């Protein structure tokens, strides 16, 4: 049996764009500054990436410097510290995601369950406050607490541990980095989840209660699914910067004794690029960093779209 199929023919792109612009003229005008910003500050500087393939000397300029192909990438991959940098960067990032990413979600869920507003506000204020402490001050506090005669060491001594500076032990650097990160960001990062929680339709809770769900089941079947798209989008974005661990904090906290676990791509780039003027090498490292981040972003987005049907694109 023959079947009449109605096919929709998509109009040519330019024609569609023209029509859309006629319909939404002012929206297009409003977007112009954003496009200009992106073009000037995000895309134009990208042409500088070419120095990763050159022996860049400032006086010779980008095009005047000699082409060296993948020499700087080879130098980086052959560097005795390459695998250590890779391992440290992934380790710090993985632990930060594993423990740091769920922490504000849990805090938001707990706060959502608190009915005493005064207590809720007090907890929120206390957890937000560390976020407003400058990183330098926060790291100074951490350093003082971690000294051999500092607070943490004294607590350890109370339980029989020897007096020890925690920041010279390579094995303790990762926990210090991750826990201090949670301490500083948990309150601030929970705001977006609290906002998402407030958007959940209260009728869903009512329906769940009628169905006999207790508080935990309500959280499990209503609250978490309600904020899941927000969680996934933030998770995808976080995965898109998996190799971007905060180098400022590491620079402030690491010592020669903890390079083994604390030195990461970004601190290496800082030392090579800004301190040693090896612009081509640091650009090559940065480019490698970005490529890995993009791979992770695309993979996580694909996985999220497959499993939760929510993704960035």
């Amino acid at each position, binding site marked *: 049996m023959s079947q009449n199929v109605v096919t929709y023919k998509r109009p040519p792109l330019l024609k569609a764009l023209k029509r859309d612009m006629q319909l939404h003229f002012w929206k297009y005008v409003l977007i112009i500054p954003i496009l200009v910003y992106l073009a000037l500050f995000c895309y134009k500087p990208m042409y500088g990436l070419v120095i990763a393939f050159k*022996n860049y*000397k*400032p*006086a*010779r300029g980008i095009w005047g410097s000699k082409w060296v192909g993948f*020499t700087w990438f080879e*130098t980086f991959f052959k*560097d*005795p*510290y390459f695998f250590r940098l890779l391992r440290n960067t992934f380790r710090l990032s993985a632990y930060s995601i594993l423990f740091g990413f769920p922490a504000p979600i849990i805090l938001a869920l707990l706060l959502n369950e608190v009915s005493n507003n005064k207590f809720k506000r007090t907890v929120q204020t206390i957890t937000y406050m560390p976020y407003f402490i400058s990183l330098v001050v926060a790291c100074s506090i951490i*350093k*003082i607490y971690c*000294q*051999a*005669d500092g607070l943490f060491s004294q607590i350890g001594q109370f339980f029989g541990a020897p*007096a*020890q*500076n925690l*920041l*010279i032990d*390579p094995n303790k650097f990762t926990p210090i980095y991750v826990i201090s990160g949670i301490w500083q960001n948990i309150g601030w990062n929970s705001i977006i989840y609290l906002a998402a929680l407030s958007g959940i339709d209260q009728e869903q809770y009512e329906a769940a209660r009628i169905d006999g769900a207790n508080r935990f089941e309500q959280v499990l079947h209503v609250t978490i699914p309600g904020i899941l798209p927000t969680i996934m989008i933030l998770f995808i974005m976080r995965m898109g910067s998996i190799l971007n661990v905060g180098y400022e904090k590491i620079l402030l906290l690491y*010592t*020669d*004794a903890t*390079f*083994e676990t604390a*030195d990461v791509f970004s601190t290496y780039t800082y*030392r*090579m690029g*800004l*301190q*040693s*003027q*090896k*612009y081509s*090498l640091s650009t090559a490292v940065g480019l490698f960093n970005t490529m890995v981040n993009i791979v992770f972003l695309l993979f996580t987005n694909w996985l999220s779209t497959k499993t939760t049907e929510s993704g960035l694109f």
Partner: protein
Amino acid sequence: MKKLFALALALCLVLAAVPASALELLSGADIYPLDAADKTITWYAQDGLNPHEKFADWKESPFHTNMSKQIGVNIEWVIPTTGTDGGTFTNTLMADPANLPNIMKLGSGGFDNAALYLEDEVIWDLTPYIQEYAPAYYAFLQTNPAYDKAMKTDDGQYYGFGFFREGGGWNDTYQGPVVRTDWLAEQGLDFPKTLSEFENVIRVFNEKYGAKFAAPWSRFKQSPALSGMFGGFAASDQQWAVQDGKVFLGQAHEGYRAYVSWLNKLWEEGLLDQDIFSLDDTSIKAKVQNGQIGIGYTSMGQMNNWNKECDAAGIGAVWAGSPIPKADDGSISSVFGGFGIGTGHIAVITKTADEETLKLCLRALDYAYTQEGFLFWNYGLENDTWVWGPEGIPVWTEKMANDTDVDPMTKYNGATWGSSCIQADNLLYLKNSKAAIEANNTWFFVFPEDNEKNLAVTGGWKWPVGTTFTLDEADELDLIAGSIGTYCTENFASFVTGTLDVDDDAVWEKYLADFETYNLSRITEIRQACYDRYAAR
């Protein structure tokens, strides 16, 4: 010991008593001020010329504003933003050669790549102009072949204006061991002069007062620290040394091994402060005031501060410089120091200056090496901040003497921390306490009876100032020498804390063998060639 101090102090006072003219500087009276007040030059100063903390910027700073009047040209100063790392700020500027200030006064770190900057025409080759437009500087360089050699490339091109100390290397040895003399007296001990005595003081202070050996890491990591008593040349920071014309890395030397082994022993026995890797000049002060340190390692300026603060807090601690310990047989290989030629404080003229501006810049820089400029750079304006004293040497006026701000002379002078100038010994005497001067004497006069031997230990072992790599060498070092410094610093920490057992021959052999992964042989080869060219200049 007291006789030694007295002898050394007397020697320095004799040096200081020599009037400025004994430096044989040309007078600038007939040249300055120039008739160029309508012309402007831009002058960048990485470190050492920051306006005093009381001023918001250089426009409020008497030294910076007076300089324009003294020279007779309008100077626009470019100073790194407060709180930023000077080296990083400089590198950021250097990334844009077309917009560099006319004069770039670089900070510590040296200028090994001068040949590259000359080749790339980032900076001017001063050779054709120096005698005519910087006669005072040129004449000063001719007074000492070592000065002249350090300020040229291998091809004989002059490229910068250096920093020189009037007293040679005396103040290059500005840091060393310090000890609480009140505790020494209480325990009936003398200043420790040998390794055994030094270790004994650490043990006695630990036993009696619970104190440990400690130091600000930024100072203790600088080579050679105390490694000289073990025949070594290096601490944590990568250090290239020269002995009998042979270049080598200090961290691959047997003396270094003995030094870190000793430090590890102190660490294991709880005699070395556990916080040493994270202590800085500020955080160590709490330990100083709490009596947690009785013997340590720091600079003369910081020791001065420790004494002042202990005095203000009513703590009876009296700190003094302790001799740099020698081996028990009296030998010592190296001491933190130099020959009084600034390793990094060099001013170059960039190609953003056209030829006429270049000549003006040369005149401006040359001023510091004239008799008048020497006095201005060291003391400020005559009859304002200083006058001639009865012994023919400058003394502060009441305005300066009564100024209670920290380092008030830096409001008016530019030679306190180092720049493109000559630092007067007398300035250091005026600036520092008697205890600090005595400390510097103690550290510098390692062999007071043998000047040649003393110079060899304080500066002769170091990679010299003014070496220049060829373009190919610089490119190759860029590719292969990036990580060797990290290998040095982190292994120092591993050896000291015992993460790696430096006394285990297998560990030590592996440590040495692994240097090849960091291209030690090739880097040494390049540096040897560079040194040989320098020596042949």
